[in-house]
C-alpha cells in the first residue's frame, strides 16, 4: 500500500502564467480542488487550492466594478499560489499511512507526489477514504462483525482467525484499533463474504474472552 499505487497519475496541472480568471474557471469546470502549478518538465512551482482563489477585498483599491476587473485581470496563478517552499509533498514510495499522517498533522487536503521535484501524481483525502473503503472490502456484500478482545495479550487475534478458518470461510477484510472508549480492549473488525449473520454469530460467540459488540450486513 504505497502512495504510487493509489495516487492519481497525470493530475491536471497549470503553468504559473495562467491568469487567475482562467484558473478559477478551469477548476470550477472540472471540479478540481487542488491544482499543482508546474514549470518546464513538470517541475513543481506551487499549488493553488480553492482557498488561494479567495481574493482579499482589502487589497482592492475600491469596490468599483472596473477596478475589480482590472485587478483580477492582472493577477496570474503565480501571484496567488502557495509557493514551492511552502507546499507539503510526498514521495511516490511513501506509505499510505505516512501520507495520511502528514495531511492530518498539517491540516491539508492534498499532497502533490513529487519525484526529483517533478510532479508525478496527486493524493487527496478522497484517495485515503477510498483506500479505507477498499480495505474494509466495501465493494462486496458480506457480514461485518466487530469484536472486542483483551489488548496486549498474545494469541487473541489468532483465536479469532482460527475460529473463522475452522469454518472454512475466507476473511475478506480485517482491521483493528484500540477500542475507542476502553484502552484495555482491542477492537477487531472482520468481514466475511457469503455467510449469514447467524452463522457468524454461532461460530464466533463461543470464543473465550472475546465479545461481539456489533454485527451487521455491510
Amino acid at each position: 500500500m504505497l502512495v504510487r499505487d493509489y495516487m492519481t497519475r497525470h493530475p491536471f496541472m497549470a503553468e504559473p502564467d495562467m491568469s487567475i480568471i482562467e484558473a478559477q474557471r478551469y477548476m470550477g469546470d472540472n471540479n478540481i480542488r487542488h491544482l499543482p502549478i508546474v514549470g518546464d518538465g513538470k517541475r513543481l512551482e506551487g499549488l493553488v487550492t480553492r482557498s488561494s482563489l479567495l481574493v482579499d477585498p482589502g487589497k482592492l483599491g475600491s469596490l468599483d466594478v472596473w477596478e475589480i476587473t482590472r485587478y483580477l485581470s492582472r493577477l496570474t496563478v503565480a501571484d496567488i499560489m502557495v509557493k514551492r517552499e511552502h507546499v507539503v509533498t510526498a514521495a511516490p514510495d511513501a506509505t499510505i499511512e505516512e501520507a495520511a499522517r502528514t495531511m492530518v498533522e498539517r491540516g491539508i487536503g492534498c499532497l502533490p507526489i513529487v519525484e526529483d521535484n517533478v510532479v508525478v501524481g496527486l493524493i487527496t483525502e478522497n484517495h485515503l477514504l477510498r483506500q479505507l473503503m477498499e480495505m474494509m472490502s466495501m465493494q462486496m456484500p458480506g457480514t461485518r462483525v466487530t469484536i472486542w478482545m483483551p489488548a496486549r495479550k498474545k494469541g487473541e487475534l489468532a483465536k479469532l482467525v482460527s475460529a473463522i478458518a475452522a469454518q472454512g470461510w475466507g476473511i475478506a477484510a480485517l482491521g483493528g484499533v484500540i477500542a475507542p472508549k476502553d484502552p484495555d480492549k482491542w477492537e477487531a473488525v472482520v468481514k466475511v463474504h457469503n455467510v449469514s449473520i447467524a452463522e457468524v454469530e454461532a461460530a464466533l460467540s463461543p470464543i473465550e474472552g472475546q465479545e461481539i459488540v456489533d454485527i451487521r450486513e455491510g
Partner: protein
Amino acid sequence: MQTQQDTPILNVENLAISYKIRDGMVPAVRDVSFKIHRGEAHGIVGESGCGKSTVAFGIVNFLGRNGRIVNGQILFQGRDLVGRSQEELRRLRGDRIAMVYQDPMQALNPTMRIGDQMAEVLVIHRGMSKAEADDRCVQMLEQVHMPDPANMMRRFPHQVSGGQQQRVVIGMALLNDPALLIMDEPTTALDVTVEAAVLDLIAELQHTYDTAIMYISHNLGVVARVSDKVGVMYAGALVERARVSDIYLHPAHPYTQGLMRCVPKLGMNKTDSYLYPIRGRVPAPTNLPAGCVYEPRCDYARPECSQKRPELREVLPGRWVRCHFAEEVLEGKWEPPEELVPDLEKLAKPADGDEAILQIEHAKTYYEAPSKKMIGGERQYVKAVDDVSIAAQRGMTLGIVGESGCGKSTLVKTIIGLEKPTGGEMEFMGLDITVPVSKRNLNLIMIRLLNMMRLGENYYDRLPRQLSGGEKQRVGIARAIAGNPEMILCDEPVSALDVSVQAAVLNLLLETQHKLGSTMVFIAHDLSVIRFFCDTIGVMYLGQFAEIGPAEAIYAPPYHPYTEALLSAVPIPNPTAEQKHIRLSGAVPSALNPPSGCRFHTRCPRRTTLPDGGKICEEETPPWREVSAEHRIACHIPLEELRQIDPVITIDQEESHAR
C-alpha cells in the same frame, strides 16, 4: 461527485481541419468527436487519406503552415488546445503529450548514441544531471524489454534492429511520463513477430503508467489488440465509433462492413470464400458528395442518402454511427451485388494436372561479404538462400512466408535470374516470353490488358503519377502478364495497398491466374493473405525452409515451432478467437554466420522439450519429417510430439458466423 478522474484526458469535439491551397480550403477532417479517458486506449482505423494522421497532428498543432483548425475544440485534461500559443503547445508536447510515429529512424538522430539522445530529453526538460539521466534511461530501456540496456545506451540507432529502434522511441516517449501518448502506425513497418511483442509492450505500459493512448492504424487486428474502443474514419469524417468487439461482430456502418469483407480472415481460403472489394474509391476532399460521403460506394444507398448528410448518432448504447439506415445495416441483410458473385468452383480448379512447372533443388545464393582483415583472411558469405528445394505445380500458387531477412525475395530474384545462383539446380519448363508482339496490334493488346485489369481504355494515355496506388499495382500486374507467362512471381504485391484495394488486386490476380493458367510464387508477410491465396506454402527461416506443405496443413498442427510462433503473432480482430501467446526473443540472426545445427535453435521456444535442453538442435541439421506426401517439417522434435501441440488459434465458429 464528479472528480478529475471522470474528465477525459482528451476530448475532441466536432473537430474540423482544413488545408489552405491555391484554390481555396481543402477540408481534410470534418466532424470528428471522441473521448479518451485515463489509462484507456482508443483506436482510429481507416484507409490512407482518410484523415487519421491529420487528427493526430491537429491535436499537437503540427499541421504545417497551411493547415488550420477551422472548427471544434480539443480539450486536453479539460483545457482547450485550440488557439494556444506555440510556446504553450511546445511545453505540453514535451511534458504531457508524446508521439510515436511509423518510422523509428525518423524519430531518432542517426548521429547520436541512443543513450545520449534519450538522456537529452531528461537533461533539457527536467534539468537532471547527465549521470542521473543516464540511470533513468537504463531503467526505461529495461522497462521496454531491451536486452542488455547498459550496452544499448552506447550504440547508434542503426546498430539495433527495427523493432528495438521502435522500443527506444517508445521508451523515449515515456521518459517524461506523458498523460497522453499518440501512436501513429507504430508497428506498421515491423515484422509480425516483432509487432506482436511491441503491441504487448504498449498494453503493459498503458497499465503501469496509466497513460491514455490514441492508437492510429489501418489494421483492425492491431487496433483490437491494444484498444477497447475504436473509431472508423472515412473521407475525413468519423463514420462509426464503438467497442472493438461490436465493430468486428456487428459492423453498423456500410463502410465498416465493407472493410470487414475485404480482409481475408485467417482460415479463409480462395475455394470457399471470396473477398468483396468496395467499389469506387475514396472521394477527393475537394470534391465531396453533397449527401453522405460514402453514398457513391454504398450498397444500401437510397435517394435521400445523396441529399442529406447523416449525423453521427447513437444507434445502440455506446455505438455511434453516421448512417441514415444503420439499423438496417445492423440486421445484416446484405447480398453481394450480382456482378461480384464469383464462381468459386471455377476459380479453385487448377488448370491442369500435377505437372511440376518449376523445380528447384538445393538452390543456394550467397553474397560475398568483405573480409574484416586487411590482407588475406577467409572469404565470408552471407548465405541468403541456403540449400532450398521446392516445386510448384502448374496452375497452382506457391506461397512463401517468413520474417524480413529470411531470404524470401532473394529466392525469387534467383529464380528470375536477377541474382546469380551460387549452386543447385532450377528447372523451369515451357517458359515462353520471347514471342515478339507485332507493333500493329500492340495498342489493342494493351487495351485488352487494361480492360482485364478493370482499368478502361482511357488509362492508356495516363502517366504513372496520375494513378492511385492500387491502379499502379494493376498496371504492374498487366505488364507482368503481357507476355502470357507460364509463371508469375509476386513479391509482396499487396502489402503496400489499402485493404479495400488489396481485396480487388487479390481477386484480379486470382482471375488472371485462372484465365492464363499460370503458376504463381507469392511472397507475403501477412499470414491471412497467404492462407487465402496460396495452395502450397513454404515457411522460410534464415535462408532455409522450415516447413513446406499444403496451405491448410500449415495452419493446423503439427507445426514447425517457427510456424507456430508466426501464427501466434498474427493480429486477429475477432473477439471470439483465442490465440496462444508465443513471443520469439531477439531478431533473425545474421545470415553471415548462421547458427549451427538447426538455424532456429537460438530462438526456438520448444527446444527445451528435447533431452539435454535440445543439445541436438545446436549440433545437427534437423531432418525433414514427412507428415504426408506434400507436408514436410524440418525439426528434431519427433512428429508425434509436434502433433500433440494444440492449435494456435481457435475460433468460436458459431459466434463468428452469426454476424
